């Protein structure tokens, strides 16, 4: 479903993604883990036609995001790491916009929007503007929107960040069901290791733009003599804090917030 070979992305003289390769089978739930600034989001952006790779090749559902971006766009859905709602539209309008853009016929669209908004507990707030929502409510709306059309592959970039445990479990139940029923491939990143351990069939760990390990959670634990995936993760990526880039993302978020006022 996804095949990546020798993929590289540089920003100026900084290499964010350094010659990585992996593949994800159809119907697989695949976790892409790594410390802050490892290159996860950059990789997802290249897979989803938002960034052009510096070198290497990608196939998503058999199509190359550089050569045939539209074919690729038809095959995936995505929940972005940072905010991507239209703040001036209501929750319902954000959903409706997405549904129309993704060719969902009206009856199905209306029904799913209702279901999903109930599902993320926003149905009674459906006519409120997105800008009036709390961070977690916005996140829930983004998740509902990402689940609205049922794509072949769904990319989730830290989908559960800032979500309460109820919503988090809910979301995974829904995704696992979708995965079982429709064979949807799920590609996600997270910093919660137990979450990856629980739902992912296979895990790749990326650090400083390089893939340092790949396999099932159990294989990684065995390989590093660890009891939990978190221990395995730490022994593969070291214990130093990658605060430099964490700070950068934080700062961007803060700036965005300040700017909005």
């Amino acid at each position: 479903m996804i095949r990546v070979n020798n993929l590289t992305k540089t920003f100026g003289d900084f290499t964010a993604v350094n010659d990585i390769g992996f593949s994800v089978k159809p119907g697989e739930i695949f976790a892409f883990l790594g410390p802050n600034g490892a290159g996860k989001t950059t990789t997802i952006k290249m897979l989803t036609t938002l960034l052009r790779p510096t070198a290497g090749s990608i196939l998503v559902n058999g199509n190359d995001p550089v050569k045939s971006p539209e074919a690729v766009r038809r095959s995936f859905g995505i929940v972005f790491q940072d905010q991507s709602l239209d703040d001036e539209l209501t929750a319902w309008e954000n959903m409706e916009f997405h549904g129309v853009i993704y060719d969902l016929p009206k009856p199905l669209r209306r029904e799913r929007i209702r279901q999903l908004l109930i599902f993320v507990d926003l149905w009674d707030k459906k006519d409120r503007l997105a800008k009036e929502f709390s961070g977690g409510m916005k996140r829930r709306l983004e998740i509902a929107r990402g689940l609205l059309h049922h794509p072949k592959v769904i990319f989730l970039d830290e989908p559960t960040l800032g979500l309460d445990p109820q919503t988090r479990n809910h979301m995974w139940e829904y995704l696992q069901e979708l995965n079982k029923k429709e064979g949807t491939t799920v590609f996600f990143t997270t910093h919660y290791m137990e979450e990856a351990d629980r739902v992912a069939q296979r895990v790749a760990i990326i650090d400083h733009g390089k893939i340092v390990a790949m396999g099932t959670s159990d294989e990684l634990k065995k390989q590093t003599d660890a009891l939990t995936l978190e221990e395995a993760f730490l022994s593969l990526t070291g214990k130093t804090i990658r605060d430099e880039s964490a700070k950068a993302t934080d700062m961007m978020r803060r700036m965005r917030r300040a700017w909005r006022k």
Partner: protein
Amino acid sequence: MFMNKIYILWLRQIKRWLRSRSRIVGSLAQPLLFLLALGYGFSSIFQEAGQGNYITFLAPGIIGMGIIFTSIFSGMEVIWDRQFGFLKETLVAPMPRFNIMLGRTLGGATIATIQGVILMILSMFFGFRPEHLISIVPALGVMFLMALLFTSLGTMIASLLEDMQGFHLVMNFLVMPLFFLSGALFPLEGLPKTLSIITRLDPLSYGIDALRELFLGMGHYGLAMDLVVLTLVTLLFLGLGSYFFKKIQV
């Protein structure tokens, strides 16, 4: 399906506009101020020079002013979308980027046309009289063409800019000159050579000229010429706009 998608993109622009009262009022207030201050200020000089009623002459220029400011601003909303992240949602949509650009441009152009119409009506309260009321119908077409032209230009510029900083630069060093050098405020007859060449290079001149031709029967370039230039430049900017919009990375 194609129409549905264009429609929802169009609708989004309209809704955003209707929800920002301050933007509506703001973009009417400035042209209105120009109309009143200049219109009454210069009316006697204009009359003495044998040019007739200045408010009537000025009104099409003021309509053009409202249209160019609103359309460039609407086109440049791409920058806001980038800043707030919504641009990503549209850029991964399974439809040609040209259609995305088209939908939002039509939305922006509709808004600018409505602002132009409101200014036209407001001008009538201050003495603006078209020769024949029926001329309003073709004038609407011209206004929409102007709006389309400048919305595409705004989209094109915004696609090339990374952040908000460039926005004020564009407003001050592109939109202001386009407005002042367009013949919105003065007749195009008997201009000094250089100025006359510059006004000829400004697409806004042709839009306002066409409006004067239609409303007042006093054009300079001729209606046919105006329409040809407006149409060609609109097509050019739509093409360039979608070219640069296609190349956006986030």
